[in-house]
Every structure is written in structure tokens, then in C-alpha cells.
């Protein structure tokens, strides 16, 4: 599992290879099967499903990507991204109040939310440094706790202590915000509507990118990571890119519903930039510090890396990214529940990441994107499949919730168990 240990394994037969891939990615494989079954019984057409998936991928990916840095720094799954989401929501509320619309509104939102998220990220980091080893439960409780503070501010203080005159936002009593806030005529689709392309065009462009990237990497390798040229997986990704472009070229000639799907390009590009940033960040000095601290705090301290400071940095970055991600989420959603939209962000994002095959100590961009895809596919199909299979949509819904909680539980158990076994082995070797 650990990619830093390079052992050349003996040649495996194809069957063994497939078996290895399946057992190593059990959770992901399970969810792929679940999604396929759900899709089959939901009775949805592929075009419709794809449309929903595109919307939800664009909406949620950035938030899930915000979880990667703390995992790298050994702080586990950052349930405290809820705090970032709260910052974003606070900023969005004020920008809506001031009536700044469109992209300028988003700009002001980002300007407001970034320092706030940095501050809260810093405080979260301080707390986590005091509760090492309990970061995940701490982050979860911290999320509940700050939700109380958030409600105090927006339900009680706004309108009473904080002057806030706005009939559409504030309750009729003049104190506290309404439970839902509508962003139509405001920030709704502010980023998404900037530039939309048909899915076919965007997909063909992406296919071409995959081809070019694959060819370049195949020829040059990744020198900074010591990866040699000629890695076969890049041929595979090039072929996949060509296949994607070819399929969409074929679709373009047909009357398929897929032709009507549009992709918000600016949002997609932002998500892409976040991926690129994360990839290159790992190779910087700070990124390497994150890894060292993540592997062993004491060794990091001995080798001159200030581990507490590094953990603080990881939390600040993660919270800021989460707040940006939540801005993207809200402008895409267009309307949000003032006191509820942020609550589930941590849990949904963590579940998505784990479903993609990540663990408490190892999370990659591919895990985040694949996980978001699978988790939200399940989101779309499970109520329909539940209704068609059992005559009850609620059953499918409960099942989905159970699976999401269960997958977090199971992967935490697997991780803790493995760690315990490793400790035992180390003890018996000494």
C-alpha cells in the first residue's frame, strides 16, 4: 500500500493482477457495482444521469479536494471543513445583502471569506495540536460547536446587535435570518454561467488533453519524482482520451440527449487548477514537510521540521480551500438553507473521498474525483431504485445514508486495525 516502499514484485499472471486490483480497491469496486445495480433499477436514461452527474461533480469536487492536504500531513480526514463552509456562507450572506451580483460578487465573497477561513483554520489547527490522535472526532465535534456559534450570530445577533436591514433576508420580527436564502438574481450561477460549453465539445477537448498529457509523460516521465519514461499507464490514459473524444464525436452526430448537456467551463477549470496545484504542491519543500510530518511527527521534529507549525499550515490551507469550494457549491445550488447547508458538508465530502478508495493516511486526486462521481451517482439513483425495487423511495434513501455512514465507519476500522497489527509486528520484531 505504501508507495514509498519500492519492491519489484515477481511477475504476476493476468488473473493474479486482476485479483490484486480488486482486493486493494474493494470499497471502490463495491460502489461501482452498487451504482450499476442502482442505475439499472432506477430506470433513468443514461443522458439524464450524465446530466445530473456533471452538475453534481462540478458542484462538489472542489470541496472533496480540500480534504487532501490534511491527510497528507497525517491529520486524517478533516471533518472540520465545515468551518470553511460556514465562512463561505457568512460571506455569501453579506454579499447578497449588499446586492453585489455576478462575478464581482464572487470576487468580494472570496475576499471576505479567505481571511476569515484562515483565522478559523488557524484556530482549528491550534485545537488539533492540543488533541493529537483525536483530530477526527475533534473536527466533528468542532463542527457541531461552531454551528452553535454560527446560529448565535445569524439567528440572534443579526438584526439585534449587528445592524442588518433587509426585508428579503431577515425574518419578519427583524431579528435573525430566514431559513432559506435565495441566490437567484444574485450569485446564482455567477461562476458557472461565465462560460458554458456543450458536454460533447468539452469532453472532446478533455480527451485531447488526456492524449497530449499521456504522450508527453510517456516520452519524458516525471523527472522530479524520479519516474522514468515509458510508463505504460500513460499509454492507457492516452487511449482512454482518444476513446472519450471518439465516442463524443459519434454522439454529436446523433440525436442523443447528451448533446444538450452543458458544462460550466470556468468552474471545471478551477477544479482542474486545484488538481494541478495539489499535484505540484507535493513536490515543493512545504509539501515534502507535510509528508514527513504525516509519516512520523517525531522524526520530522528531529530533522528540523516544526511539526506543529506544519500541521497549522495544513489546516489553514484546507479550511481556505473548503471555503472556496463551498462558494462554488452555493453558487451552483442557487438557494441554500441558512442553518443547514454547511452541516453535512464534512460528512458527505469525507464519504465521497473514502468511496474513491482513499484511506486515513493515503488520499489522492484520483480518489477524490472518482469518489465524488460514485457517491453522487448513488445519490441520484438510490431513491428511484428504492422505489422501483421495494415500492418505497424512503427505503433507498435510508440505504444510501447507511452506506455512507457505513463506508466511513468501515474504512476507519480497517485503518485502525491495520495500524494495530503493524504495531504488534514491530513490537515482536524488537
Amino acid at each position, binding site marked *: 500500500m505504501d508507495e514509498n516502499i519500492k519492491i519489484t514484485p515477481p511477475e504476476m499472471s493476468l488473473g493474479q493482477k486482476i485479483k490484486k486490483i480488486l482486493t486493494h480497491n474493494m470499497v471502490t469496486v463495491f460502489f461501482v457495482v452498487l451504482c450499476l445495480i442502482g442505475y439499472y433499477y432506477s430506470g433513468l436514461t443514461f443522458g439524464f444521469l450524465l446530466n445530473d452527474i456533471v452538475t453534481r461533480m462540478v458542484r462538489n469536487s472542489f470541496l472533496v479536494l480540500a480534504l487532501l492536504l490534511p491527510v497528507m500531513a497525517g491529520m486524517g480526514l478533516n471533518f472540520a471543513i465545515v468551518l470553511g463552509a460556514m465562512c463561505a456562507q457568512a460571506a455569501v450572506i453579506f454579499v447578497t445583502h449588499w446586492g453585489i451580483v455576478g462575478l464581482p460578487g464572487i470576487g468580494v465573497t472570496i475576499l471576505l471569506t479567505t481571511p476569515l477561513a484562515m483565522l478559523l483554520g488557524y484556530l482549528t489547527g491550534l485545537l488539533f495540536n492540543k488533541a493529537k490522535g483525536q483530530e477526527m472526532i475533534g473536527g466533528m465535534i468542532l463542527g*457541531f460547536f461552531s454551528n452553535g456559534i454560527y446560529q*448565535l450570530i445569524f439567528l440572534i445577533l443579526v438584526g439585534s446587535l449587528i445592524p442588518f436591514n433587509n426585508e428579503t433576508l431577515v425574518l419578519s420580527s427583524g431579528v435573525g435570518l430566514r431559513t432559506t436564502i435565495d441566490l437567484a438574481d444574485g450569485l446564482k450561477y455567477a461562476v458557472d454561467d461565465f462560460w458554458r460549453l456543450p458536454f460533447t465539445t468539452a469532453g472532446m477537448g478533455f480527451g485531447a488533453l488526456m492524449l497530449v498529457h499521456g504522450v508527453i509523460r510517456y516520452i519524458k516521465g516525471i523527472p522530479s519524482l524520479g519516474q522514468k519514461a515509458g510508463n505504460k499507464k500513460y499509454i492507457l490514459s492516452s487511449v482512454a482520451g482518444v476513446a472519450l473524444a471518439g465516442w463524443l464525436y459519434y454522439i454529436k452526430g446523433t440525436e442523443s440527449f447528451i448533446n444538450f448537456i452543458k458544462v460550466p467551463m470556468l468552474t471545471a477549470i478551477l477544479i482542474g487548477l486545484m488538481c494541478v496545484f495539489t499535484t505540484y504542491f507535493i513536490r515543493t519543500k512545504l509539501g515534502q514537510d507535510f509528508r514527513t510530518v504525516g509519516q512520523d511527527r517525531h522524526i520530522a521534529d528531529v530533522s528540523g521540521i516544526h511539526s506543529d507549525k506544519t500541521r497549522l499550515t495544513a489546516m489553514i490551507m484546507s479550511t481556505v480551500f473548503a471555503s472556496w469550494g463551498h462558494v462554488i457549491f452555493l453558487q451552483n445550488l442557487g438557494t441554500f438553507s441558512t442553518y443547514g447547508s454547511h452541516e453535512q458538508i464534512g460528512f458527505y465530502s469525507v464519504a465521497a473521498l473514502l468511496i474513491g478508495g482513499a484511506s486515513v493516511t493515503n488520499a489522492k486526486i484520483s480518489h477524490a474525483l472518482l469518489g465524488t462521481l460514485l457517491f453522487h451517482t448513488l445519490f441520484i439513483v438510490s431513491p428511484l431504485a428504492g422505489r422501483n425495487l421495494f415500492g418505497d423511495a424512503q427505503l433507498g434513501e435510508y440505504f444510501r445514508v447507511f452506506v455512507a455512514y*457505513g463506508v466511513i465507519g468501515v474504512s476507519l476500522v480497517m485503518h485502525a486495525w491495520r495500524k494495530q497489527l503493524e504495531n504488534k509486528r514491530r513490537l515482536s520484531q524488537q
Partner: protein
Amino acid sequence: MDKAKVLINRFGLPRIIIVAFLLVLLVMAVMLDIPLNNLISDALVRTGMNGILVLAMVPGILAGIGLNFGIPIGIVCGLLGGLIAIELDLYGFQALFTAVAISIPLSLVAGYFYGLLLNRVKGSEMTIATYVGFSIVSLMSIGWLVLPFTSEDMRWPIGTGLRTTITLQGRYERILNQWGSFDVFGVTIPTGLLLFMLFFCLLVWLFLRSKMGVAMIAAGDSPKFATASGINVNRMRVVGTMLSTALSAVGIVIYSQSFGFIQLYQAPMFMSFAAVAAILIGGASIKKANIANVLIGALLFQSLLVVSLPVANKVLEDVSSLAEIARIVISNGIILYALTQIGGGE
């Protein structure tokens, strides 16, 4: 001065704030002419109704599994017991004791397997317990829809599955509360409820002084030392977990009889947090807890909830959620404080 500092340190700043807050609320209640006798009656009832759920934390903490966020496992067993008592069409004390008698073996079995699981994940029990609890609650949500209960009192008149809240009116609603209850200065004492809770406290107290109880405390306190003196630490942890799960099962039956309803589906999801907060407010930590912590904690926390609602409503007439916000901030604040006290900061 130094003595005061030591005392503050031992008691913990958050607890001082909470007690001070409660005192302020009480003074305000008196000034606002809110009848105190009703408040005290309510506080007593709610202490008794939550007491056993809070008590369920003690064996978990002492056995070394930390704050048992996994009590929803016991809670669903207790709910199942309550439902079976209705399905058998029982009334009164017979129904109540049947519910308790059914839920205990169920929860002991569930607690056994849960204990085995927790033994494999030492060091991350609390996070995992939370998610195991959440998973069980959502799994049982499916269960409530498909389990073959037939009683008309429990099923939706149309559609499938059991109702979200099932009334206990006419069955065993508040029978413990009313048993031997009497009024002193306008304060109603729910004698039966309090005696029942104290009885369970006594049982746990006795257990902790038995040979096995002492071994369990030793195992939780310092596993290495306990192993050296021949105690099977893993076994003791399982015992603690089983006990904690069984107590929470009994706890929810008592809770429902006092509340008057059995709440199904998502209702048990966050019940563990209230119990955890209560025992921490009572002075427990992640490693240490005793019966006094349970009683003080349940009384303080529930009084706070009971008093804050009418006071907040009188002070801010249009805003009724202040009490709820206070609950969220206080209960989660005290848990966060306890987490920072483990010594993870080195």
C-alpha cells in the same frame, strides 16, 4: 491564591463557566417571575429520564474505551424491547419490565460484538464509535420499515413500516414517574423514576467494587500494568462495553416511558452526545468517571436545559432558539475541552 488556582484547575474552567451560567439563569428566572417549583420538577424528571443513559458512560470510560459515542447500539436494542412489549399488547409495569427484560440480553450480545470491534481499533475508539452508532441508526431505519411488526398502534395506517413516534399513552407512559410521586412546596418528586435510576447507579457502584469491576478499572487505567498483573485487558474492555451498551438500552426504555413516546428512525442519532456532555459536565474526564459525576452531570445539564428555555423566551420574545443554541455550544464545548485534556499535545 495558589489554592484557588489548583481548585480551578482541578474543576476545569469550562465547568466553572457552566455552573456560573446556570446560576445566572436561575437568578434571572426568579427576577422574571418564572415559577421555580415547575422548573425544579421538570429538572428532576429530566434528570431521572436521562440518568441511566449518562450512567452508561461510566463502564466505558473506566474500561478504557473512552467516551462511548456508540450507545445508539444499545439504544436501538432498547427501542426494540419497547416495541416488542407493545407488539405483545402488554400494559403497565408488565410492559415496562418486559421491555427492559428483552432489551438487556439483546444489548449484551450487541455489546459483545461491539466490544470485540473496539479491541481491534485501540486509540481511535471514539471516532469509530460515532460512525458505528450512525451506521446502526441508519441501518435500523431500514429495519423499522421492514420488520414484521403487526400492532395497529405502531404501524402507519397507510403505507409501510412503523410510525416515527409511537405513543405510549395508556400503556406505560410515565408510570415510573407517577409511582409514589408526591409534592413538596409545589415541587413534584417523581419518586419511582428517581429510585429506579438510583437503583441502577447502586448496581454499577456495586459492580465497580466487585473483583471483576476492580480488574476492569485497572485494565482501563493502565493496560500494561494490568496485563503484568494477569488481567486480560481485552476481555475487561469487552465487559465494560457490554455493560455500557446494556445500560443505554435500559436507559432508552426509561427515557421513552417518561417522554411518553418511542422515537424511531433518526431520533437516536445524536443521543450519545447529550449523555457524553452530561457526564463531562459532572466532572468526568476521558479516563476517569464515577457515579457522582453521573448524578451531578445529569442534574446540572438537564437543569440548564430546563431553565434556559423559559428564560430565553421571556428575554427575547420572538427568538425561541436561544436555548437550543446554548445547548449546542455548551454540550459540544465541554466535549472539545475534554478532548484537549487527554494529553495529545505532549
